[in-house]
């Protein structure tokens, strides 16, 4: 399998605080990699480094085995030259955000067709046909003339996925795509993501959905205190020792454990009476 995108010796700090240290991660074409970890562990920063929305303090990023050229000035921001050269690279990497970030003043259809028309200079007719195709894929054909504020969270997130697909990206990044959704809307978004996996799109997903992580991912990254503590397949993850950090973290996500403990407490109480 060929490597699609790769982080080499990546560090990121904000002031004195180190957010990511020595991250080495390569993602193969067609692979689905999930990133899990406690809040503040650096997982969002990590995924945002993949399209350089966040600028690494040091280290390199390779895309299709070519180093992405970016330079940082003394203030830790991208130089103007890099800022000017990056948009072209970013068109190849789609991103879906926790809070959807749809353009509020544009209709669903315009949210989809604006970028291909303006940036890829796609003819309006092609962009429109593409939009119909992707809206059908996410099941929102009937909503194309609505404004984002008229849609539910789950619908907005599906529009956001369709918008990212319109650029025909080689990689799709998902930064906690279901964390801002009401529980009953999570599945509709996960379903669309599974469809994309089936289509063979390379995906990197930051998530707290353990069922999705275990069933859909090819590999799982567990990150804590800015370091990769575990990297392997879901099966390898399941075989980790119960007292490993990654297992402790996963157990914290399982709310049934608490309820189970409560139940036992209850029955002990009854027995005592």
């Amino acid at each position, binding site marked *: 399998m060929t490597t699609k995108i790769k982080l080499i010796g990546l560090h990121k700090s904000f002031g004195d605080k180190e957010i990511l240290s020595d991250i080495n991660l390569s993602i193969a074409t067609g692979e689905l990699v999930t990133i899990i970890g406690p809040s503040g562990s650096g997982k969002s920063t990590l995924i945002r480094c993949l*399209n350089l*929305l966040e600028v690494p303090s040091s280290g390199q990023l390779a895309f299709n085995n070519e180093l992405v050229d970016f330079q940082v000035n003394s203030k830790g*921001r991208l130089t103007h030259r890099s*800022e*000017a050269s990056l*948009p*072209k*690279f*970013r*068109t190849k*990497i*789609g*991103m879906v*955000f926790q*809070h*959807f*970030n*749809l*353009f*509020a*003043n544009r209709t669903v259809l315009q949210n989809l067709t*604006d*970028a291909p028309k*303006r*940036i890829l200079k796609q003819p309006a007719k092609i962009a429109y046909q593409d939009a119909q195709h992707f809206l059908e894929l996410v099941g929102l054909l009937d909503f194309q003339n*609505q*404004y984002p*504020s*008229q849609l539910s969270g789950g619908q907005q997130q599906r529009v*956001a996925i369709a*918008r*990212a697909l319109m*650029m025909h990206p080689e990689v799709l*990044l998902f930064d906690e795509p279901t964390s801002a959704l009401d529980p009953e809307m999570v599945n509709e978004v996960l379903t669309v993501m599974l469809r994309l996996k089936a289509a063979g799109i390379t995906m990197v997903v930051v998530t707290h959905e353990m069922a999705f992580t275990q069933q859909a991912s090819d590999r799982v990254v567990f990150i804590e205190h800015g370091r990769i503590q575990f990297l392997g397949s879901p099966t390898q993850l399941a075989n980790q020792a119960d007292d490993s950090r990654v297992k402790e973290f996963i157990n914290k996500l399982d709310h049934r454990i608490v309820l189970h403990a409560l139940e036992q407490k209850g029955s002990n109480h009854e027995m005592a009476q």
Partner: protein
Amino acid sequence: MDWKMVQQNLPLLVNGMGMTLLISVLALGIATVAGFFIALMRISKVATIRRIAATYNWFVRGIPVMILLFLLYYSAPFGIKLSAFGAGLLGLTINGSAFVAEIFRSGFRAIDPGQVEAAKALGYKSWQIMFYIKLPQVVKITSPTYVSNAIALLKESAQVSVITVPDLMLKASNLYSSTYKTWETLGVAAVLYLLLCSIFMVIQWGLEKRYNTMGLTVG
């Protein structure tokens, strides 16, 4: 009320109204362009540029327009001699630009940073983000305050009469001084000002209606 006198004075007052409209619209136009760039300076990444713009706004907003007009007309710096119209237009423009700049700045600050990030991730260049993502929303967000400010500017333009710009106010007060009839002169002028301001208010009403049909809340 002496209606005959009103009728006699009307052409003179309407003539002054033309001057009021001309100087206000010109000042507003230039102040809008200037204010936009000052607002960009206010949100610049470079601290020095931010400070220059903030100082300008602090200074201009804190000085009465009338003093500004006197200073420009009677003793403009560098030995420049301005006509009454030139000094009046410059004074209103300088004053207006600082207020417009603050209005635009508030609009820029109200933009959801997530949308800007989404645009970046899609591959928008900086100028495209400004032109396609930020500007349309700034216009939308700031339109009620902007129009209110335009109305204020139009009314404040009456102060250019003190440096002899022949506007509606000057014509009306001259008529008053020679007749001592308040309602027939200043009263009629008030109605004419109200008429001019109403044009802006109608524009504002139209804008808000348009944005509301777009499923957006303005504010």
